[in-house]
Structure formats: C-alpha cells, structure tokens
C-alpha cells in the first residue's frame, strides 16, 4: 500500500499522474506528515537527477568541514608496503615456469605411454657418479656367483631388466 502511494508520488512529481488521482493524492499527503516528507525527498532527488540547481543543495562550508576533519586525524607510522607490481611480475614468472614444467612433463609422460617399447620400471635412481652400466654388470656377476636365481629370473636377459637395479652412492 505504502509502495503504491510512493509510486503515485513519484508519478505526480514527474507530472505523469492524471488530475483526479493527483487531487486525491494531495488530499492524502495534506493529512499525513510522513507522506509530506516522502514528497520532499522525491522532489529533491528529482532535482538532483535533472541537475537543476543541485549546487544549491550542498552546504557551502561542506568542503572546509571535510578539510578540518582530515587535519584532525592522527598520523600513523606504519611500514611501507612493497610495490605490488613486483610481486605480480614474480607471480607471473613463477606461474609461467610451472606451466612450462607441466607441459614438459605431460609431453614426457605422453611419449612414454605411447611408446611401443617396454619401459623398465625404475623405483628410484638418485644421481650417482659411477656409471650405472658398470655397477649393474658387477651386480649381475655377483648375483650369478651368489645363487642360481639369475637363471630363473632371467636377469641376464638384457639392460631392460638390469635397469630395475636400484643404486645410489652413499653420502
């Protein structure tokens, strides 16, 4: 109900309400102080929107009052923030590196998956200064001298099986 009245007030201000309804609305506003306030606010808003004499609505001492308020504000000695632009640049660089690494890894994994050659299952190979081939050959020799299992497991078959050897230099 209140909304309908407000809408009629708005139409009245815009001169879009017919005379009969406008007459009834004015009678209603005359008897109701709240509606009188609504009418004043709507008129003010209409003026501002239409930019008609809007400067008159602002108190001439408004700017000075703001200036005084600012001057009364205390000063805080806070640490300066580092320029954000540097972090953004660093962030972009890191993100680009990660994307490149992911693309490289995906290509590598994809190549392995598509390869028709059997890929030896390597559990863990840390950097080792000695040649892996030499180590594996010695390991095979030792295994053969140790037990007969080299023949059962066919360890002599070739480098693919030897690649399963896990070796690393002790720190």
């Amino acid at each position: 109900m209140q909304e309908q009245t407000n809408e009629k007030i708005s139409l009245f201000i815009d001169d879009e309400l017919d005379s009969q309804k406008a007459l009834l609305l004015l009678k209603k506003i005359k008897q109701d102080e709240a509606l009188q306030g609504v009418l004043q606010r709507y008129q003010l808003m209409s003026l501002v929107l239409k930019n008609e004499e809007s400067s008159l609505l602002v108190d001439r001492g408004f700017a000075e009052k703001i200036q005084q308020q600012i001057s009364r504000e205390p000063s805080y000695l806070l640490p300066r923030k580092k320029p954000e632009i540097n972090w953004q640049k660093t962030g972009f660089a890191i993100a680009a590196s990660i994307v490149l690494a992911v693309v490289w890894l995906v290509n590598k994994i994809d190549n392995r998956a598509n390869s028709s050659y059997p890929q030896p299952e390597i559990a863990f190979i840390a950097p080792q200064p000695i040649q892996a081939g030499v180590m594996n050959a010695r390991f095979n020799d030792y295994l053969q001298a140790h037990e007969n299992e080299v023949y059962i497991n066919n360890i002599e078959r070739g480098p693919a099986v030897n690649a399963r050897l896990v070796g690393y230099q002790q720190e």
Partner: protein
Amino acid sequence: MLLRFLVVSLLSFSVAAADEKPITPQQWLEKMNVAMKLLNYQGTVIFMKNGQLDTMKYRHSFADGVEQERLSSLNTPLREVTRKSNEVSCLFKETKQKVINHHPLDSSFILNLPSNNENLDKLYSVTLLGNESVAMLPTQIIDIHPRDQYRYARKIWIESQYYLPLKVEVYNVDGSILEQVLFTDLQVDGNTDLNAGAIDEKSLHVTHIHTTQAEPFEQAPFLLKNWPQGFNTVFFIRNSLQQSQKAVDHLLISDGFSSVSVYLEPKQDQGLQGPNSLGSVNSFSRVIDKFQITVLGEVPAKTVEFIASGVALR
C-alpha cells in the same frame, strides 16, 4: 625305486601318526626337506620375483643318489634351467647358448631350508598358521618369523600328503610381499622324464663357469667382525666372475633360509660404494685400501650393511 617307496611309506606313516599326536612346525619342515629331495614330482610353478612374473614347468627327480631339477619357461624368452646336484646349466633356446655353472652349493630352485632345525628356534619363531588349499590340494601353512631384523619372514604352504611346498612367500621388513613361488598343479611320483625335449648339444654354444676348490675361510685375506646370529660359513672360494674374468674371493654364509655372499677383489677405477638392491637381494659395497668389498644376499639392507661394515683385511 625301493628308496622312493620307503620315503612315501615313511611320510604316509607320519600322517597316520599325526592323527594321534599333532605334528610340530619343525617336523613339518623336516618332512618337507626330505620330500623335496627324494620324491619324483612335477608341476607348473609361477615365480614372482623382482617385479617379474615367470611361469615355468618344474620337474624333480632323485635317482642313483643324484638329485635333479629342471625348469622350462613357458613364455619368451624361452630357457631351460637344469640342476644336477651342484651343477646348474641354463639353456637359452632362442640364442642356442648354454651356460654351465659348477656351483659349490646345491640349492633348490623352489626353496632353501636349513639342513637341521636345532638352532632354528633361536633365529625364527616357527608356528602353524591354519590350513588352505593350493592347486586344489590341502596344505598346512607354516609361519617362519625372524626374531631379529637381520632376515626376512616367510610363509610356506606345505601339501598335507607328501609334504611338498606348494607356495612360498617372502616378506619385507615392512610386511609387504617380496617374492612368491606358487605351484598351480602338482603330480607326485609320476614319469618325470628330465630329458624330454632336449636339444642336440652339438648345435649349442656352451660356456662353462668353473669354480675352484673350496678353501678354509681362515685362508681368506679378509675376516668378518660382524656376524648376524645363526649365519655360518658355507664355503670360501677364489673365483673368477663371468664378465670380468678377474679373481675374486668369495665367502658364502647362510642361516639355512637365507645366504649372503662377501666378495673381495682389487678395486677398479673409483670403486663401488653404498647400497644396491634387486627385489629381495640387497648389497652393500665399500672400498678398503685397494680392495673392493661387496656384501650381497637375500636379506634386508640392514644386514648386508652390518656385515660389510665389519669386513677387515687380515
């Protein structure tokens, strides 16, 4: 033939006696030891070792006091491994190459066992762990759990009538399975013709790997200060390894289930240092003066490192 009859009769009598008094875990192992060596049997065996699966036809025979085993792979690469007592030969059918290794120890392809169980209780807790069927045959599970961290745990599924091992599992120190050997079928006392499908020897390229006569360990240029409990000297030889053809001192020690080799040879280049592993086999290498020491065996990494750290030159 008579001996085979006696073995089967003895094992059958044991089963009958078992109705009155339960067989202890140690007795199960003793009977299995006898049955594995003296019975004729064959079957299909799956070896799961080092992340690799091999299915092989297995034949075992005992005749004229000589034990023979033969493994024929069913899948590529085709090969045939034969053991006559302590001579092991491997025939690679595709390349027609044959390697004959005169090894001083006649160990089984299926399972190594202590020759006597006197000190077994000090090293392992051996218990019965229920019954299961393997290859549609009833088995008794024997749990062999080490009392220290120097050896692996095992379970053996022993067939209830002939006491043959149908399944063996070796466990890592964290409890994960390292190795499995599994029969998918078994025929006992059948016609185990080990020469079936033999290839003409003349068409083969044969390589012999000879080992010299075993010597007393006291004559070795090194000694071991760290012996894990229960490990004893099996042999000490001065060998030449196949690829390098260089003299290597080789000591083999064993607790019955697991064996460890200690190698000493002149150091080459910068030498090998640190641990290495392949499935259940671990090794640890170090350099002492001008010598390369490598300790290798189917024991945890901790064991080979422990032994290697105690190797000293005499």
